[in-house]
């Protein structure tokens, strides 16, 4: 019992830590690609703590404050459903399908909070976020279904177990994996999919009125978000991992490639983003799905 | 002791009253108003007295003046005829009450005399057992109707009356020629006799006579395309007369067709031929009704549609089909008469027959509108009203023959029911939920006009919620007709 509680406390912290390191690397990678020196490696920690320690915080209402809290709570909940090597706490209570919807709680919280700011930039940001989500959701469900059909289970832990000994989905369903990568990338909202926050257009969108500790919590949530998306990709396509180290290495590999991509793209218009997702990723995912069905 | 349960009384008493009314102004100004009520009151009683007799024997036959059939003028009342006689008498009684409050135009006693004569003719047409009598009754009815349609003596009524007169006269002549041809072939006019004798004739020999009789009666019975007088005549007549014309007169003509077809020309091909007419009547009646702006015209076209419907049910040519037809006849007679009465009362208040002017009437004339709605629901065949049972029966009966023709017909019927729903609901929602642009001084209909409506409404509600006796009775009548018990029993009782 005690160990369960300890694990329950540790898992979110672990996810947070992984997300945090990713953000750290992100700033550095971005800087190096742009031939800059870049901020100190622990700059995100400074940023976060500074925000949390702001002396003044404003709120536009209860929902405004609850938004980041719900978002973070939802993200923490999602973390429990993703198998981490050695720690499968709640994978028996909800499967992959449940996870897809649990992941939405975080977005919902953020959307509610942003909506309550009474700022059109925030509303436009949320509108774009949801539209983008609708966009990448179509290829996402197709590849998720192809993976489920491949392993005849919706239990994530079982899916990970089935990929043991190097039988990664990446090798068996390469097309799905490619689409999965694109979708995960879209879900992270990096270039060219950073339409949601697009500072030059909608002034960071949903975050427009957030500052101080609220923004800090949203940053934490973002770290969790990165962790969730990439961990899910690793579990689905790269066979999870047998220990935390390899898990981290795999995640980092995925993240590193994504950050490299981030630097070379411009920004989509929102409808072009949706059109993009509904075109090539969907077609490729469908081909992959048909391959699984026939096989 | 005079046996009151004598069919002849059904005609004789009202005829007496016709003369009485015609001369009533000699002794009392207002007597003409009330005499028809008494006449049809007596008729209802007589008809009711006939019920046990008919149920017992299946048929009541009476001859006149001591002659023996086939020469005698005989009256035959079987279950089906009784059925219609009751409807006609009750409608006559109720509409007479309505007339008291409704008719305020001179010359009153002529109106009442013609009105009484109209219903007498209808009853005569129903109970006669003799082809020539049928013609006479037909003419009596027509003449009374011509006069009544033109009663308002404005341009529209006179034109409508004239059209009706011409077409009715052609119909009467065709009927007469048909009857003469039958007489020439068989040498007798008594229906029973003709039925027996004509059994030996070939189809071709009979068919032309039948075609002429059919066309003659069909003109009165509102079959397409012979019904063109109807949409003019029914709206032009005073509403109480429209109520009778729509409610029972077309039905009586259809009854005559049914009777003659059943006992003389009972060929399967004929039914196909008739079904064609029935469906055409239904389609054109309902579709035309959809376009009407004049409420009485709409109801008149709806009558054509309903006629097509129950005529179709008859052409299914099965006990179930006939049962459905009879149920639909009751439904149509009661509902449509009631609708015309209500609409008449409303026209008095609104002062216009245009549907647009009926906006918001549901809030002003609550009782009338309520019964109007019930009548319309029943005509549309919405449960739990009586029309639902009859429509259910007709469709069930039609689909007993699961051939493509029947299924196609059923589809047509139901499509036309949708059209019917379309125009009735259009009117209903305008009345109940529309809001008039300016506030009008509209009061509830007068008590004298409401009473008949309420009586008919309650009859409709009663048979809606307790349909079993009517269903049974219709079933018996239908099976009698189907098994030709009419002939057999008449032969037995009449000692022919």
């Amino acid at each position, binding site marked *: 019992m005690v160990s369960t509680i300890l694990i329950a406390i540790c898992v979110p912290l672990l996810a947070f830590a992984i997300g945090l390191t990713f953000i750290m690397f992100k*700033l550095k990678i971005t*800087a190096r690609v*742009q*031939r*800059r*020196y*870049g*901020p*100190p490696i622990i*700059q995100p920690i*400074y*940023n976060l*703590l*500074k925000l949390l*320690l*702001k*002396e*003044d*915080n*404003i709120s536009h209402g209860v929902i405004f404050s609850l938004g980041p809290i719900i978002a973070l709570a939802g993200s923490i909940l999602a973390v429990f459903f993703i198998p981490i090597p050695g720690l499968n706490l709640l994978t028996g209570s909800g499967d992959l399908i449940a996870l897809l919807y649990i992941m939405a709680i975080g977005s919902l919280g953020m959307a509610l909070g942003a909506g309550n700011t009474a700022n059109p930039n925030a509303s436009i940001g949320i509108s774009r976020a949801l539209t983008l989500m609708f966009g990448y959701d179509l290829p996402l469900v197709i590849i998720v279904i192809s993976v489920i059909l491949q392993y005849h289970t919706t239990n994530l832990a079982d899916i990970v177990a089935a990929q043991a000994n190097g039988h990664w989905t990446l090798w068996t369903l390469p097309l799905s994996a490619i689409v999965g990568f694109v979708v995960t990338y879209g879900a992270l909202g990096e270039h060219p999919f950073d339409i949601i926050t697009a*500072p030059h257009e909608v*002034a*960071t969108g949903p*975050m*427009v*009125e*957030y*500052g*101080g500790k609220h*923004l800090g919590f949203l940053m934490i949530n973002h770290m969790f978000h990165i962790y969730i998306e990439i961990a899910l990709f690793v579990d689905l396509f790269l066979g999870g991992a047998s220990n935390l180290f390899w898990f981290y290495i795999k995640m980092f590999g995925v993240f590193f490639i994504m950050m490299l991509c981030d630097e070379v793209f411009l920004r989509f218009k929102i409808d072009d983003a949706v059109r993009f997702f509904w075109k090539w990723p969907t077609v490729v995912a469908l081909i992959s799905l048909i391959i699984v069905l026939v096989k | 002791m005079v046996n009151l349960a004598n069919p002849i009384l059904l005609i004789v008493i009202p005829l007496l009253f016709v003369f009485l009314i015609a001369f009533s102004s000699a002794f009392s100004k207002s007597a003409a108003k009330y005499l028809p009520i008494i006449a049809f009151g007596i008729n209802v009683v007589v008809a009711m007295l006939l019920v046990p007799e008919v149920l017992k024997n299946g048929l009541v036959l009476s001859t006149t003046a001591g002659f023996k059939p086939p020469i005698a003028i005989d009256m035959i009342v079987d279950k089906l005829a009784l059925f219609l006689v009751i409807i006609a008498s009750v409608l006559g009684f109720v509409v007479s009450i309505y007339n008291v409050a409704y008719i305020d135009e001179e010359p009153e006693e002529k109106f009442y005399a013609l009105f009484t004569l109209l219903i007498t003719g209808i009853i005569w047409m129903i109970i006669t057992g003799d082809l020539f009598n049928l013609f006479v009754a037909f003419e009596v009815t027509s003449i009374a109707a011509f006069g009544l349609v033109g009663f308002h003596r404005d341009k529209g009524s006179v034109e409508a009356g004239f059209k009706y007169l011409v077409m009715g006269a052609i119909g009467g002549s065709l009927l007469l020629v048909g009857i003469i041809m039958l007489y020439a072939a068989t040498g007798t006019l008594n229906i029973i006799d003709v039925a027996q004798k004509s059994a030996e004739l070939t189809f071709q020999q009979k068919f032309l006579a039948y075609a002429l009789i059919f066309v003659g009666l069909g003109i009165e019975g509102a079959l397409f395309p012979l019904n063109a007088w109807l949409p003019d005549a029914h709206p032009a007549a005073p509403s109480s007369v429209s109520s009778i014309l729509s409610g029972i007169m077309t039905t009586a003509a259809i009854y005559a067709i049914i009777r003659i077809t059943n006992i003389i020309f009972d060929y399967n091909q004929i039914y196909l031929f008739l079904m064609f007419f029935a469906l055409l009547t239904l389609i054109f009646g309902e579709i035309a009704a959809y376009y009407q702006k004049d409420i009485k015209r709409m109801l008149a076209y709806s009558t054509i549609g309903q006629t097509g419907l129950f005529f179709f049910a008859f052409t299914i040519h099965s006990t179930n089909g006939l049962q459905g037809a009879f149920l639909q006849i009751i439904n149509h007679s009661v509902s449509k008469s009631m609708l015309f009465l209500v609409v008449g009362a409303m026209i008095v208040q609104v002062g216009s027959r245009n549907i647009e002017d009926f906006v918001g009437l549901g809030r002003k004339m609550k009782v009338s509108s309520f019964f109007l709605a019930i009548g319309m629901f029943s005509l549309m065949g919405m449960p739990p009203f009586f029309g639902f049972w009859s429509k259910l029966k007709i469709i069930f009966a039609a689909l007993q023959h699961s051939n493509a023709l029947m299924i196609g017909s059923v589809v047509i019927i139901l499509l036309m029911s949708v059209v019917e729903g379309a125009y009735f609901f259009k009117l209903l929602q305008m009345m109940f939920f529309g809001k008039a642009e300016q506030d009008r001084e509209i009061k509830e209909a007068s008590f004298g006009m409401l009473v008949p409506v309420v009586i008919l409404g309650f009859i409709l509600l009663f048979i809606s919620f307790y349909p079993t006796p009517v269903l049974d009775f219709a079933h018996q009548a239908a099976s009698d007709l189907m098994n030709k018990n009419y002939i057999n029993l008449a032969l037995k009782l009449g000692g022919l």
Partner: protein
Amino acid sequence: MEKMTQDQVRTIANMLRKRSLWMIHYCTGCGAMELPPTMTSRYDMSRLGLAPFVTSRQADILLITGYLNVKTLRRVITVYEQMLDPKYVIGFGSCALNGGVYWDSYAVIKQLDRYIPADLYIAGCMPRPEAIITAFQDLMDLIDSGKADGYKRYKRDLAYYKENQRKVLG
């Protein structure tokens, strides 16, 4: 004890704040041209933990890059008031300091800190990126030592600032 803890917290907080300065640059004049070189590879101000941000709620530094006229002052004040404590203002270039070349214009605000408390000015027309970087470093030192207290002054002398603002804005 409690005071000591608070002091310690403040010290730590100041240490963190100076390492993470997010700025909103109010691009009213030509000074904005000097910021892109400062941000990009050549000078890379993110080395110091500085980053450009978009909205007033997120930013710590308000950078007035150039002359302010009456019309824009109103906006600057709104932005400044919307920023969350602690917040710092840097007057950028001569115009913010004393009106610069517009010293005799009827429409230009001559002295920024009559209206909002400036923590630091960067002199020059235009200041070079090196000067800007130096200014940020100076600001960091001020923050570390707790002397960058413009926001406190604004609260304390609100009447004074408001009076001056009213005079100009009407």
